[in-house]
């Protein structure tokens, strides 16, 4: 196979995945249809994640008006927002609730797309960009957690970053020092401090959102170009117009989501779900408090990390990442029935680890 043939082939491949000839009003808006069947609710999840992302942008920008990213001011400014700024507590609360809801809907979106075989040709690249978006979303959660600079957050971040260093134990020779260097590049100095806060702030507020905009742009464009996937094996009973019928339904779901979010934000402080007092600023000289935990959306990997040797987790996450990225090719010929069973199993694992992870940990550790 010479170079010209290779170029030709990849050209054809890309043209199939990115049908730019469909980039017009008629096929993207007028003709697009959504199948109606028993799994149709899955079609709302991506839009819902998008909605929560938009909420995050707006509330995040609002928080930026008051937040100060320095080790001496960060905690005080968050406290100031919560206690003194009118509706500041509400805005911060909505930001934290929406972050959790965004991650939850992204995860459900992932599982439903998998169960509906939405990654099948020609939508492979849509899936891959979706996996990238999942990674960026988790990174946003991880970086955002540090910004209030309270005891739990700083210590949890420390632990999270030290885990990277531990990878060095499994690498031979000079390579064993690389993870430590990577860690120090991320945190900017020998231990978590001002440099880390500045870097996480930049990541959380500018770099990762910009990355999302880019990848999300491609993701949404290819969704619009290819239309909705069929989702089930048999032909759907009927189709409905994407615009305006499904779009209005989407808006309705968003409206309900906003109402739920607003009421949650008004009535239930996000912190009230935690068993520890959050409002202790980080004290570099104090001892580490008990009960350091990451946010709930990391429980699915946090508890196994606590229970199993690190190499098992490393191997597992490497396999998981690889499988996720290569799903369109690995599960190319799998039936939707099998996919649904795998998705349900994964969903059950996520729920069990998130809700009962602590109980399982204590059960197995015998404490």
């Amino acid at each position, binding site marked *: 196979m010479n170079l010209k043939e290779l170029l030709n082939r990849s050209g054809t491949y890309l043209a199939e995945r990115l049908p730019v000839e469909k980039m017009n009003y008629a096929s993207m808006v007028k003709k697009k249809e959504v199948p109606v069947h028993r799994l149709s609710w899955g079609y709302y999840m991506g839009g819902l994640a998008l909605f929560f992302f938009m909420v995050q942008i707006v509330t995040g920008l*609002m928080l930026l*008006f008051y937040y100060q990213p*320095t*080790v*001496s*001011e960060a*905690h*005080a400014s968050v406290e*100031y927002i919560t206690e*003194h*700024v*009118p*509706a*500041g507590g*509400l*805005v911060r609360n909505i930001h934290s609730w929406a972050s959790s809801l965004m991650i939850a809907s992204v995860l459900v979106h992932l599982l439903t797309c998998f169960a509906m075989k939405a990654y099948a040709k020609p939508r492979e690249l849509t899936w891959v960009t979706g996996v990238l978006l999942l990674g960026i979303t988790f990174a946003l959660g991880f970086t955002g957690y540090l910004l209030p600079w309270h005891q739990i957050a700083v*210590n949890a971040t*420390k*632990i999270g970053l*030290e*885990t990277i260093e*531990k990878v060095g134990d499994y690498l031979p020779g000079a390579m064993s020092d690389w993870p430590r260097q990577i860690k120090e590049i991320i945190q900017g100095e*020998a*231990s978590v401090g001002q440099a880390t806060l500045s870097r996480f702030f930049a990541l959380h507020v500018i770099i990762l959102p910009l990355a999302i905009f880019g990848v999300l742009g491609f993701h949404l464009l290819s969704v619009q170009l290819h239309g909705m996937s069929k989702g089930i094996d048999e032909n759907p009973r009927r189709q409905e117009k994407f615009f305006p019928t499904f779009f209005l339904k989407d808006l309705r779901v968003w*409206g309900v989501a*906003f109402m739920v979010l*607003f009421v949650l934000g008004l009535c239930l402080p996000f912190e009230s779900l935690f068993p520890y007092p959050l409002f202790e*600023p980080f004290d*570099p*000289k*104090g*001892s*580490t*408090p*008990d009960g*350091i935990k990451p946010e709930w959306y990391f429980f699915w990997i946090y508890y196994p990390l*606590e229970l199993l040797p690190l190499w098992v987790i490393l191997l597992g996450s490497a396999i998981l990442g690889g499988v996720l990225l290569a799903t369109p090719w690995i599960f190319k010929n799998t039936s939707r029935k099998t996919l649904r069973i795998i998705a349900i199993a994964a969903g059950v694992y996520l729920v069990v680890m998130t809700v009962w992870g602590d109980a399982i940990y204590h059960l197995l550790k015998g*404490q």
Partner: protein
Amino acid sequence: MIDLFLYIGLPYIAIIVAIIGCYRRAKYSKYSMTTRSSQFLEDKQLLWGSTPWHIGVIVVLLGHLIAFLLPQVWAAIVSVPWAVFVIETVGVAASILALAGLGTLIYRRVTSARIQAVTTTADLLVVALLFAQIVLGVLSATHFRYGASWSTGTVVPYLWSLLTLQPDMTYVTGFPMLFKLHLIGAWLFILLLPFTRLMHILAVPFQYIWRRPQIVIWNTARRRQQAVAATVAADSRREFLKGAVGVTGATGLLAIGVSNKALNYFKGAAADPEAESALLEKKLRRLELTAEERKYELERQRSSMILVAPYKDLDPLKGKYFIDYKMAPGLAFRGKDGLPVVISAKCTHLGCTVSSTLDENGRVMCPCHVSFFNIFTGQPEGGPAKDPLRKIDWALVDPTGKALITGVAGNKPEGTATPEELAACSLFITKPAPAAV
């Protein structure tokens, strides 16, 4: 005499006639209790006449009724100045809306041939009277301002005196002519109620609000086909209207709620001197802490020895935290032999700070993942940590600045001191030799 008739005789006559008349008509001529709809003959002008008319007049009538039936509630409401303002504005606006609608209806009634064919004298009388009555009402409202407020002490007691059969017209005889005419008009309407189409007020078809639209047609094949199309159109228009009302209402509420919160958010905290100074104090304290830490950092870069604590402050069971040359936490105990035990407090598992209290086995615990360390050897004893805690170089320095005993990691302590000398000493950590870094 004429007043007596107009304010006491006429009301009672009107009420008695209305009750008996309405009863008889409802009983003997049930199907005449209608508004004698003419939508069938003409529906375009009717839409722009009937709708504003009814919306306007219902709002106005409800205002009158509430003021009359719930005088206490009404008085409480109108005691708020801006509430009176709102009520008056809404009332006049609704009246003008009703007048506009009624004007359209009158125009339609006198210009359309089809409507003319079914118009009775009573119809004309009723519309003319209604028009006059509302004009009188608007004029009274604008000439004698804040009627919503002053009527509670005049008209309402008068009406109640009639209702309780103790008629007292002293409240109303002093009224200006404009308002007297409005009042007399009201009794005329009650009098006319059983004899005109006005009686449809008592037969409001509320169920129409929920009923699917019906279309009345001439029964021919062509008309039937048209009717199907018209029904579909009417149905979809109805759905659209319902949806639009819902969306507009919800969006409006949402916009009000959100913008209220957002505006205040950007406006910032109201200046409360006490809270502000407390906040300032807190910020200053944090800044001092940061400055202190920066000082530590500089000190560790520049000096070869750093004070941990006076020797007498060291405890065998409760360690003293300090910051070592790597800016990581360290712990200092007094060992069994009286010499200090100085060890890093940074857990070798994931870098948490270990606790400072010894348990009965001479171990400290890291709270993150429950690793135990023997502080004398530094070795981990149970838990996920694999590597020992780092030992830190130290020196005991007497008040003159002479190092009596020095301890370097991995070696035995060098030097001696008497207990008295020891008590006067202070514990320092010493900069590790460059090769060891």
